């Protein structure tokens, strides 16, 4: 493996997880504010995350298994924000219901 490619892989894996986090952050922020703009803005990071991910996948240093693992990560990072937001909403909704019930019981 050439020395340049080591450096590129390092940079790509840095940006891979960083942009995944930024995507999650802005997605949740946009959803919370009900702002389509911020949601759209978050997809910029999703795109960057996918680009970094696919750059890693294209590196010859990784054998098939690692490529599959990275592809799995890419898809996970893509759906985690949406899925997680749904889960968190659900939990808080349920909590709200229960609190409401407790109040009426009193």
């Amino acid at each position, binding site marked *: *493996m*050439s*020395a340049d490619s*080591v*450096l590129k*892989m*390092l*940079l790509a*894996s*840095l940006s*891979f*997880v*960083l942009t*995944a*986090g930024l995507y*999650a*952050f802005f*997605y*949740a*922020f946009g959803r*919370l*504010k009900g702002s389509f703009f911020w949601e759209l803005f978050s997809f910029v990071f999703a795109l960057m995350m996918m680009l970094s991910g696919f750059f890693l996948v294209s*590196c010859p*240093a*990784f054998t098939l*298994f*690692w490529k599959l*693992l*990275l592809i799995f*990560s890419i898809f*996970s*990072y893509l759906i*985690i*924000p949406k899925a*997680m*937001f749904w889960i*968190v*909403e659900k*939990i*808080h909704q349920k*909590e709200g219901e*229960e*609190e409401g019930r407790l109040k009426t019981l009193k």
Partner: protein
Amino acid sequence: MKESKDLYESQKLAIGYWIVAICLFGAQLVFGLIISYQYIQPEFLHKFLNFSICRLLHINSMILWLLFGFIGGIYWFLPLETEREVVGIFLGKIAFIVLTAAVSIVVLVFLLVQIGKGEMLTLWLVTEGREYIEAPRWADIGIVAVFSIIFFNVFASIWKAKKLKGILWVLIVDLLAIIGFYIAGMFFSPNISVDQFWWWWVVHLWVEATWEVLVGVLVGWVLMAVLGTSRKIVEGWLYLEVFLIFGTGILGLGHHYFWIGAPEYWLGIGGFFSALEPLPLVAMIVHAVYDAGVHRLKTINKPAFFWIVAQAFGNFIGAGVWGFMHTLPQINLYSHGTQLTAAHGHLAFFGAYVNTNLALIYTALQRIRLHEGSILDGTLWKWVFIGLNLAMLGITAPLTVAGFTQTFVERAVGGSTWQAYIDAQSHPWFKESMIWRMGFGIMFFVCYVLLVADLLTIGKTKATHQQ
């Protein structure tokens, strides 16, 4: 602290632990500044206080102050959870005094004796010479003894209160694991591969498994105290967190076994699980944003709340981003043992543990200094919060650049030899990074001083008109 008359005895003990913790935090920073200057000017204190000694004190005081902070957190919240005084509090106080005295002796020996002859006696009395757990063997045994007392305090209190469930159950198991894993580091082996194999059991399984879970417990308590989050949500999250941390973290230990002589299957196992480790951290971000947004930053304790939110992000950036960056074995072959590891360590410890400890202390301060229902806030803590976070980013960014330089020049091009090392260290990117790092280190220290000032004063004067 004159208002502390309605505190439990164990909460007073917690304050004692935190005072020592903050002092050790200061010591950590002083030694950190010395070694960062030694990177720029290697002759500084050469022969009197060599890099090795200061670095040893830098990392050991960090481990200790974080531990002191956690123990303080346990003693603070335990009586609130069990609704009774901690059982055997007298023993607990003795343990605190013994631990503090032992720490002082160990530090003095490190400073004054520094090194010993190459025989077992040195390992028992002066230093064990294994990174992070240099404390001599007698101190190791002492630490285990003290921890056993703390464990007894916790277990007996919970048992007597008949509350062995939920969060407290996790706490008990986790404390047992902390004691157990520490024992794994208490023997000598001439085989360095075996030595490092067990050494990582302590270092990794402490830092990346049991400490994370302990912090999960403490954060849960803080959330309940400052946000009024319901116990059910906290419990659900804690279990989920234990599931994810132990599920990926225990075998994630494999990422330390890549190059120590251990069999090849660790490359696969370690790489696989550590590639999964950032996934839950990304999920946590969504949750943190949601919580912060839903509560619209409304809380009775602004500083604690901000430090807890920072914890979620810090954990993601430090452990997730900087961890994943160099965790895959194909990359780690070149980046292992460079300044990238230092950058990752700084960010991860700060993000996950320092933030939690500060949140804990602020949570307690609100209870100590204010009447129920009034809000702990001020101006100084905001500057401290911004300053410490910025300074930490400022320390790690140059370290990352230096790490890239080292990975490229020393490892990938130079083949890791002595001369290749020197070439990397003399590279302008590396040298300038060290100066930037030192600058932000000073900024961090200044913010630390402000932090101490804030901890001493917050809530004392502003309490009335903040209501």
